[in-house]
Every structure is written in C-alpha cells, then in structure tokens.
C-alpha cells in the first residue's frame, strides 16, 4: 500500500439551507477542496460520494454522486455512490483512500452531502429511522431513543453504576457549544451553560434538546493523493492518512461481555498507525447525543469506565486541553448532516493541523489526530458501521 496524503479539504456552513438541494449543497464544498488542494477537475481519477437519506427525502434514489458531481463540473471519471448511514462520509473517505493507497488512482475526491430540512420534520425522523434494520424502524424505534436506552448505551444504567448525572450528560454539549461559537461553519453558535442544556425541552428521557445533534443541511469534501505527489499540487504541510479502519457491528447476544465494536475499531486504527491514545493531539468524534461523547472517551482509550465526565471537569478535552475533542463544535454544535459528517470531521482536523482554524485554532498545532464516525443500528444490539481514521503530519 502507498502512503496517502490529504491535500485539500472543503466544508460549507451547515444549517437550514432552504434554497439548497443536494447539488447546491455539495458544490461549494467540492470546489473549496479542489482550490485548497490546487487540483483541477482534470487531475481527478475517481470520486466517492457519501449520502444517506436523500433517496427518501428528495426522491433522488439512484446516481446521487453522478448528479452532484456533474453539477460541480466533474464528469467522466468513475463515481462510486456510498450509503453507510451516519458514517457514509467516512466510508466515502475510506474508498478514496483505498483507491490511492492501492495505486489504482493517483488523485481521488471524497464527498459527503446531506439534505435533511424538508417540508415536514416527521419525514426526516422517519428517514433517519430507516438507517436502522427494518424490524426496528417499522416498530417506531428512533435514533434518539437508541442513544438513551439501547443496551450498548443505557444511560439509566450508567447513572446507577457510575453516579453520572444529567449535569454530566450536559458537559460535552456545553464544551462543544463553546467550540461551535468560534466556528463560522457551525450550525449553532451560541455558547450554552449546564443549566440551559439540562433545562431545555426533553426529547427522549433523559436526553434534552441541547444534548442532541440536530437536523442539518451540509457538505464536506477532501482531495487525497499519493503522498509522494503531494508537493506537486500544494506547498502546504503534507497530512498523511496513518490509518483508516472501517468495521461493521456484531450480532451480540445478551450475555456478550466483550469489547464494544468502537473499541475494536479504534484499537485496529491505533495499531496500524503505530500510535496510541496518549499520542493524540486532537479528536473529532461522533457525539450524536452529548452523553455518547463520554462513552466514546472510554472506547477510544482516553479513560477508564465511568471516568468520562472527569476529562471535561479537568479540562483535558476542552479546546486547549491536553487532547481537545470536537474543536469544530462536534455533531451537537457544528451540526450533523448525516452523510456529510465523516468528511466534516476530516476537514476540521486537516484545518487544525495546518493552523488555519481561525478563532477556534488549537494553540499547540495538532500533529496526530483521530476522526471517529459511526452509524446505523442492527438487530443484535450493535451499531452497523464504525470508522476510525488517524491523520499525522
């Protein structure tokens, strides 16, 4: 396998973008990435386009990638459409990485795009339910529900076992809302207090509105090339993909007591990159609901069981802590346009590693960073998709 570099990233501000369909959303992200990389459309060998629910919500069921790319002036090259729930963006990135790593392509484009604001938000909730196995979604199971009571999370059990409180659940949201307030790309830019988060409207007990990532329109893109070609296109620091690991969930019986699949995915990524959690300088992770950030601290090896809230109390994961987590504001503040999220995470980390993050720039420029993205729900008590990517300069 060849060394692969990320030489350009693009993101557009997320939010309710009423005038934008998929094509209009993707266009600025794609061109920001091309311009950032110094790459022209004729330099591209292949493109992967991640999207999850536009088929149901917009009616564009097939060939979404070709449609979106043609609108942006890209045609003729192989285009691979990627649907992998909330990890569609990370999966598109992995496809582009694999093309370049294998030598099949020299320059590859990865795009993630999602249109979630439509006429009726119940339609969006239903479409999101559709990224669970049908037997779950038909019964009305919602994603927010799973983040409260699913056996792999079960917040009530966490409260009983570790003494976690509603205030603890709110802490990641508060931290991330501050980061988001500094990010011009973020959907929500108001810094919040613990009280505001705890007292906001209950969505699914015990999760409140400000603990939940929100519906969002958005797009992100990245240009990857063989590391030895990077300087041909750009004079910026070469950012290497040290590992890019994709895993699927397991069918877990009730007596399963092994590691979480997110842990297995992260361990594989650490091993391949030759780094450990102690080496990380910044992380973008999948805080679809604020308390899940606390659990991901454990699963990424940052702390022991139940110790998540302490990492925030001790300011280890704040913007200028030892390992800042979600400098972009994360899913809760930057927004979670589901199929775009994985690429928005990569875009944020590359921007931080280059020292180009403006007001939200981490003072000590990160050299080793990790992106963690996941999605979907299977029968058998596991998520469907897990992704961990490690970048190094």
């Amino acid at each position, binding site marked *: 396998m060849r060394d692969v570099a990320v030489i350009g990233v693009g993101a557009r501000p997320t939010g309710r973008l009423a005038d934008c369909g998929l094509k209009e959303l993707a266009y600025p992200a794609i061109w920001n990435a091309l311009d950032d990389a110094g790459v022209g459309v004729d330099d591209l060998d292949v493109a992967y386009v991640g999207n999850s629910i536009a088929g149901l919500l917009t009616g564009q069921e097939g060939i979404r990638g070709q449609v979106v790319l043609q609108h942006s002036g890209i045609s003729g090259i192989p285009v691979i459409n990627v649907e992998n729930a909330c990890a569609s963006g990370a999966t598109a990135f992995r496809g582009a990485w694999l093309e370049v790593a294998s030598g099949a392509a020299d320059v590859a484009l990865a795009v993630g795009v999602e249109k979630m604001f439509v006429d009726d938000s*119940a*339609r969006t*909730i*239903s479409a999101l*339910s559709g990224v669970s196995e049908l*037997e*779950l*979604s*038909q*019964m*009305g*199971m*919602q994603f*927010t*529900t799973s983040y*409260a*009571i*699913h*056996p792999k999370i*079960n917040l*009530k*059990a966490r409260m009983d076992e570790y003494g976690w409180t509603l205030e603890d659940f709110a802490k990641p949201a508060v931290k991330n809302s501050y980061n988001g307030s500094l990010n011009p790309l973020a959907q929500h830019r108001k810094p919040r207090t613990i009280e505001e988060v705890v007292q906001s*409207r*209950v*969505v*699914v*007990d*015990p999760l409140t509105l400000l603990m939940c990532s929100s519906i969002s329109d958005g797009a992100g893109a990245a240009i990857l090339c063989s590391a030895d070609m990077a300087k041909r296109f750009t004079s910026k620091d070469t950012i290497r993909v040290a590992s890019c690991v994709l895993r699927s969930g*397991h*069918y877990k*019986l*009730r007596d399963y007591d092994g590691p979480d699949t997110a842990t297995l995915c992260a361990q594989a990524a650490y091993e391949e990159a030759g780094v450990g959690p102690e080496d990380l300088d910044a992380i973008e992770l999948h805080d679809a609901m604020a308390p899940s950030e606390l659990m991901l601290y454990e699963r990424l090896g940052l702390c022991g069981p139940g110790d998540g809230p302490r990492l925030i109390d001790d300011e280890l994961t704040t913007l200028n802590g030892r390992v800042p987590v979600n400098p972009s504001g994360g899913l809760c503040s930057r927004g979670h346009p589901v199929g775009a999220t994985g690429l928005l995470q990569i875009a944020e980390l590359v921007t931080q590693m280059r020292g180009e993050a403006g007001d939200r720039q981490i003072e000590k420029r990160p050299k080793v960073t990790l992106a963690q993205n996941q999605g979907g729900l299977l*029968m*058998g*008590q596991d998520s469907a998709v897990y992704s961990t990517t490690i970048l190094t300069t």
Partner: protein
Amino acid sequence: MELLNPKDVRISAEAGATPCLVGAQCGECGAVVFPRLPVCPKCKKRDGMTEVEIGRTAKLYSHTIARFAPTGFRAPFFQVFVDLPEGPRIFSLVGDDCPAESGVLEDGMEMRLVVEPLADTDEMRAIHTYKYVPAACADERRGDAQDA
C-alpha cells in the same frame, strides 16, 4: 388480523391461548435469537436453527418516553427494551392502555406480550404487532375480556 411481520408473531385460535413470538434456537450451542436467522450468530452453524415459541413474558430492561414521533406514530410514547426469559433482549413498544407517563414503568418489572395496532393513527390502526405491557396491566385486560 393484519400483522406487521406475520412470521414473527403467533396467535393461536385455541381458547385461553396467549400470543407469543417466534424465534429460532441453535441446535449446536443453544443460542436463541429473535427474529429468526438461518445461521447461528454465536457458533456460526448453518441450518441448525429450529423454530421456538418465546416471549410470552419478559422483564423490562430499559425504557424511555419519546416526545417526538416518526410518520404514523403518535408522541409521547414509550420505547423499551425487554429481556425474554429464553434469552433475546429486544426492542418493543408498550401497549396503548399503559399511559406514557413517568413512574408507570420501572426497569426490571414483569411484562406480558400483547398484540395490538402499531399505533392509534389512521396509517397504523389496521397493522398489528407485538407489544409488552406490565403484567398487572395484562391481568386487568384479561379480567375485562372475561367479563365481556
């Protein structure tokens, strides 16, 4: 009666019979799954899965009240996971006569299977599925049915 997934639920016409779920048990390692699978997820043995009736009772594992609903459902409504005595831990809704209020359910409580409309809405009224209700609630229902 139109069932959401007819292969997953069994309703007997015999008097006094209670409905149950239809799962599968591995002849090799004994693992029980719901819904049925052709391969055992634990020992991976193929074609050794046989049908078993399960889930007449359950124990509440976790529960929440969803304040927003997808198309066809009506909020607030309970969403729960239950532990079946035969093994599976499954997602379920809760019977309609159990009001979606805090304090009504308690993790660990005994539950019984009922078959009723997916939701009390125009879209879902005709489609039936399994749900669970607290055992006390089920006894009350049975009493009402016998009185009638």
